[in-house]
């Protein structure tokens, strides 16, 4: 196999010295991590390598020599470097050399032991692959080839292919801690040799985060203990809590905050990303909520809103009344059964009248309620949207009731019709065998059955029309609520930190690598530049998507249509923990 030498771009202009790195025999590749400059004591170099091995569990060695000939170079340097091969024995021994000011490199890899098979070359062909050390150190491959487990054994068995290069650089962080201003025994050149990179703000934030996390974790545990108290599990309250979506949202947010402020450190990069995503999502939510609050307070909009609410509810109720009057007459030219029509129409009109009186009873308190709801927006825009969705559900409760009455009536009618139709044909439903069997009925059974069947058939259009109208209204309300839930879901689950990272620091999230062939001359070794191929945006969202509490509707369009046809009640979304109908 061609020998691949991975060389960091920062060392391309370094002075002559020793190459230090890791040799991966399965892929015949040498990953160079740093260059050790003269003068050095071989014993100290070996000590340094042993230290790094202990810290990161990666076996480093001296791989060869690096020769960067300056002006007025000494020829003796070349012989001196060759002599070093005897002190640090390594198979194969790399010798990289670069002419000053030019792009001509030369590489040699020699094996001291003569290989057992005949006809094999004594010198291997070498291919140089340049890589940006800082980017490879900070980047994270997706999918993770093998998790770099610090407690597990050596890096020898963990990663395959190019992931081994990333793994090696990541584990050798201890090597990059010293820079050339340090007074250490050994002088190294690597990406931090001009000075260790750090930021004062990041350090201060790290110091301050410890006590702050502990304090907030205590507060949050108090709040969750209070909410889990037995008082809230009593029957009417537990029903109300489970139906309101704002409670679900608050619970979800509490869980997320507990996750962020927990005092446990994140074990792997995925967990760290999740924490960061949750934090950014919560911050954005609160910022949007405060913006909404300031907009509401700005021109004192709450008063006019409250005053407009009751007339709007009245208007809706009036429109419903007109609709019912229309149904009681001859809607769309259809002829209804007079008596049933009047009964149903009057029943719904009375219900509507009760509802209007209820709204008028509530009207003095509307402004106070709206003020408190607006205040809750400072907990986040999602909370405000959930409250809005709950208010819509409460205000359209009469539409929900009408839908349930219409659906139950229609369902009963359909059941009766199907069973009497079987009787009409002389069959019956066998409950034991779960199939339709033939049955001989008595004459009077047949007579009454047929009579009832005829009655139900002729009353079907009336009931079906009422059912259709109220189902459409209910679906409209469900659509509006569903839209709001979709928006809440979007804010809850979008991984904004990961998307921002992909935008600003694309090398952190790597899908793979890409190579570019650099200037090539015949007779010289092939030089490639290895760059990081960032993850596409779609995959970033898919990988780091936050889990949200709402579940998507479990039925497909086909089953929805079936339920509508047979008059079964539809519940468009189910919260976690709801029992099946």
């Amino acid at each position, binding site marked *: 196999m061609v020998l691949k030498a991975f060389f960091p771009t920062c060392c391309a202009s370094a002075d002559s010295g020793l190459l230090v790195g890791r040799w991966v025999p399965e892929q015949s590749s040498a990953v160079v991590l740093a260059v050790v400059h003269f003068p050095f004591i071989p014993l100290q170099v070996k000590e340094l390598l042993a230290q790094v091995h202990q810290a990161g569990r990666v076996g480093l060695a001296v791989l060869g020599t690096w020769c960067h000939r300056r002006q007025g170079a000494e020829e003796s340097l070349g012989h001196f470097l060759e002599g070093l091969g005897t002190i640090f024995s390594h198979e194969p021994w790399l010798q990289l050399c670069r002419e000053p000011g030019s792009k001509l490199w030369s590489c040699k890899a020699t094996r001291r032991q003569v290989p057992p098979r005949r006809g094999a070359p004594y010198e291997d*062909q070498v291919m140089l692959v340049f890589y940006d050390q800082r980017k490879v150190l900070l980047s994270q491959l997706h999918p993770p080839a093998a998790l770099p487990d610090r407690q597990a054994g050596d890096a020898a068995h963990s990663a395959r292919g190019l992931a081994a290069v990333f793994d090696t650089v990541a584990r050798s962080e201890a090597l990059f801690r010293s820079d050339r201003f340090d007074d250490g025994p050994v002088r190294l050149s690597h990406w931090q040799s001009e000075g260790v990179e750090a930021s004062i703000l990041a350090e201060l934030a790290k110091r301050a985060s410890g006590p702050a996390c502990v304090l907030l974790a205590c507060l949050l545990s108090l709040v969750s203990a209070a909410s889990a108290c037995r008082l809230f599990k009593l029957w009417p309250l537990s029903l109300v809590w489970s139906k309101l979506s704002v409670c679900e949202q608050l619970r979800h947010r509490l869980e997320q905050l507990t996750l962020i402020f927990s005092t446990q450190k994140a074990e792997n990069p995925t967990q760290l990303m999740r924490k960061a995503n949750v934090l950014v999502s919560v911050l954005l939510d609160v910022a949007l909520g405060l913006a909404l609050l300031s907009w509401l307070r700005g021109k004192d909009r709450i008063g006019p809103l409250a005053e407009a609410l009751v007339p709007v509810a009245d208007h809706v109720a009036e429109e419903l009344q007109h609709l019912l009057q229309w149904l009681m007459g001859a809607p769309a030219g259809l002829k209804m059964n007079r008596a049933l029509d009047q009964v149903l129409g009057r029943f719904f009109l009375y219900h509507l009248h009760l509802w209007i009186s209820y709204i008028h009873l509530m009207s003095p308190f509307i402004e106070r309620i709206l003020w408190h709801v607006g205040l809750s927006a400072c907990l986040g825009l999602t909370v405000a949207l959930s409250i809005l969705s709950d208010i819509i559900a409460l205000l359209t409760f009469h539409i929900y009731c009408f839908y349930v009455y219409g659906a139950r009536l229609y369902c009963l009618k359909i059941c009766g019709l199907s069973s009497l139709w079987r009787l009409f044909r002389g069959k019956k439903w066998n409950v034991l065998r779960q199939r339709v069997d033939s049955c001989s009925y008595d004459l009077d059974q047949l007579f009454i059955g047929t009579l009832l069947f005829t009655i139900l058939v002729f009353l079907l259009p009336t009931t079906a029309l009422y059912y259709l109208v109220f189902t459409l209204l209910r679906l409209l309300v469900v659509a509006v609520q569903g839209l709001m839930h979709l928006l809440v879901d979007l804010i809850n689950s979008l991984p904004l930190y990961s998307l921002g990272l992909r935008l600003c620091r694309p090398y952190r999230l790597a899908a793979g690598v890409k190579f570019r062939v650099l200037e090539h001359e015949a007779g010289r070794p092939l030089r490639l530049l290895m760059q990081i191929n960032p993850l596409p945006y779609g995959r970033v969202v898919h990988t780091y998507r936050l889990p949200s509490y709402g579940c998507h509707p479990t039925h497909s369009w086909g089953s929805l249509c079936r339920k509508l046809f047979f008059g079964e009640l539809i519940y468009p979304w189910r919260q976690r923990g709801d029992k099946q109908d």
Partner: protein
Amino acid sequence: MEDERSFSDICGGRLALQRRYYSPSCREFCLSCPRLSLRSLTAVTCAVWLAAYGLFTLCENSMILSAAIFITLLGLLGYLHFVKIDQETLLIIDSLGIQMTSSYASGKESTTFIEMGKVKDVVINEAIYMQKVIYYLCILLEDPVEPHGISQVVPVFQSAKPRLDCLIEVYRSCQEILAHQKATSASP
């Protein structure tokens, strides 16, 4: 070493294949697709604007005209950035892997790199495409679970769609490198 030859694709359009032999272990094939033709661009723009003028005479709302201009511009930018591929490149490096790059008309490049350890073979397959039977070059990936199985088939030069003569050239060069790689990796 570099040379260029012209071939044709399955619809009869002209393609240019550029071969670069960097070293015995590294070869690159660059296939340039036919450019965006002025005729089709003019035809689409005229059609969109005629429709917009028709709607304008019906509705008397000048927003329709501005919307049409907007749509045309955005559509063209989107087409150039996401759809129109100018060049497709295949870089094969012995003992590293195979890299496929597509460059779009707006300059965007999208790259995929497959490591040599995952590549089982490079073959020419037949496929039924609409009413034609065409040949395409594809890379077979190894299945980690089953040693003789294939986990994925990755087609190459999907938007250029060259004919068999061009594919044979690329196939021969790839097989030389793969054979060399298998010979050297088999021996310890």
